[in-house]
């Protein structure tokens, strides 16, 4: 069998997550440059839709790993066993996963079980003549990057969402299907998920969002955040983020926090409203493609990293910006 690169396909609500599609897109490039095959790996039963989507983004084969039991009750330890057993017998050159909550846990456990390294939260992966692939990842909250390599196989990495270009899907491509069964030892469960309180917000998850409207201390109070909601709604229900000041003041929950102690985001557009730009906040968002900063303080640090800086009262500017976008989108229709 030719050398293979594996991309772990993570599903959410029956659909492949965007970061997995980004990795298939990148995996296809890497496979072609190295004369490898790209295999999409699914932990779970086969579906035609998964195969078609994985093929459209570049997978040549889709590997479905199952066992006799009900997948709904699996914990990360059982997923690790499934994945690690197949990795040991199949010996792909590399395994790439999305750096999601579950992806990071699964990658860490699997790498430990196999005794190989893991390049976590990568923002670039390149072909390398010495080590096959090399991995670039942020350290010190993005204030420095490290290039990593390893002589071990498989090379393992998780990729930060929104860091790899999503390819144009080609639904004329097809992929072969391979099914493998792994026998798991049955043991009494030691961890049971009792309850999941689903995210109330319909907005996209921050790390995978294309556009983020974020507010800081300059919002003044919790009620004032509605001006951001209006702007985010006008932009098509995009994500809302917050600085630490907003979260610490109790105006928004922890899940909204962008920064070194919150989420690291890389959207195409980040609109920072009333955020001064602490070093910790910048660490969480300075890999955004385009940054707009609105701040009344002409000396605010955020204005230095902004592509477009607007100095003035956000309560004057943001509603006018919302109105301008409404005008633009109306003209589009």
């Amino acid at each position: 069998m030719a050398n293979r690169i594996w991309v772990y396909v993570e599903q959410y609500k029956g659909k492949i997550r965007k970061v997995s599609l980004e990795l298939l897109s990148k995996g296809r490039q890497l496979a072609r440059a190295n004369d490898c095959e790209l295999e999409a790996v699914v932990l779970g039963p086969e579906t035609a839709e998964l195969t078609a989507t994985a093929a459209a983004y570049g997978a040549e084969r889709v590997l479905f790993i199952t066992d006799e039991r009900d997948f709904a009750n699996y914990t990360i330890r059982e997923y690790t066993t499934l994945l690690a057993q197949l990795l040991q017998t199949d010996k792909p050159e590399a395994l790439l996963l999305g750096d999601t909550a579950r992806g990071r846990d699964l990658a860490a456990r699997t790498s430990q079980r196999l005794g190989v390294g893991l390049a976590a939260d990568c923002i670039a992966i390149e072909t390398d003549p010495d080590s096959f692939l090399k991995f670039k990842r942020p350290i010190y909250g993005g204030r420095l990057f490290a290039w990593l390599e390893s002589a071990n196989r498989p090379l393992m990495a998780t990729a930060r969402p929104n860091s790899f270009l999503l390819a144009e899907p080609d639904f004329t491509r097809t992929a072969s299907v391979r099914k493998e069964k792994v026998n798991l030892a049955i043991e009494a469960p030691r961890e049971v998920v009792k309850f999941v309180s689903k995210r109330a917000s319909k907005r996209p998850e921050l790390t995978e969002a294309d556009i983020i409207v974020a507010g800081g201390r300059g919002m003044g109070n919790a009620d004032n955040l509605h001006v951001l909601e209006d702007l985010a709604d006008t932009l098509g229900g995009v994500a809302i983020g917050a600085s630490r000041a907003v979260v610490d003041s109790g105006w928004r929950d922890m899940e909204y926090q962008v920064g070194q102690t919150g989420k690291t985001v890389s959207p195409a557009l980040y609109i920072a409203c009333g955020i001064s730009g602490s070093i910790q906040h910048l660490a969480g968002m300075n890999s955004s493609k385009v940054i707009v900063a609105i701040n009344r303080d002409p000396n605010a640090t955020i204005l230095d990293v902004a592509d477009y800086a607007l100095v003035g009262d956000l309560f004057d500017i943001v509603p006018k910006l919302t109105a301008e976008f409404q005008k633009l989108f109306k003209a589009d229709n």
Partner: protein
Amino acid sequence: MDIIVCLKQTFDTETVIWLNEKGEINDKDVKLIINPYDEFALEEALRVKEKLGGEVTVVSLGGVRTQEALRAALALGADKAMLINCENLTELDEMMAAKILARAINALPFDMIFTGRMAIDSGGAQMAMRLAEEFDLPAVSGITKIELEGRTAVVQHETDEGLETVEVLLPAVFSAQKGLNEPRYPVMAGILKAKKKPLDIIAAEELAAGLPLQSGMKVRGYVAPESRLPGRVLNGSAAEMTAELVRLLREEAKVV
């Protein structure tokens, strides 16, 4: 309830990071702190101990200066500390660090291991899962709440889907997320007591005997982030600025 807290000493969050002439990260005259997430881990361990009894042992892999962080943890109320001095072992990746930590922890009785959700320097966010794997234990990352009911811990943590409540049979490993608690401050009595508490130092190379230290990820080099090109300051009234911004986002940046 005996608890191990894995604690890492990191650069202060305000530290300016730069590379010296050898291409290494400058660590001279850098202010060192306890990794902020590990403070939540330690605080939770201390609260459990105060409620249910038992011992809290802090374990750290680091250089000799890490004794300061461990002494600070003892001052806050930890009972014992262990420094695994790894100054002679460079380039330990997360996998190998976890193996060495696990060998040290293996000699200690424990019901729970707490770590911080991530170290703010390496940003790995893997240690809880790796230690759990070494001991074949359940683990939950980034917990924001924990309640103990006998030998069961009921924990909450945020996943990509929402806030999940998990029942976990002890022994188990948990990593602490911001929001779990409000860490306490040291008091003078604690600082004085800490001086008499045991702080053992073990050489990492002793614990690492027989391990394939060359495996895992290696750093080939560091690069500074590309600085963002200076942006444009828009002028005029709010109406003029916003009209211009929307035009630029559409025509120049092409993001809307």
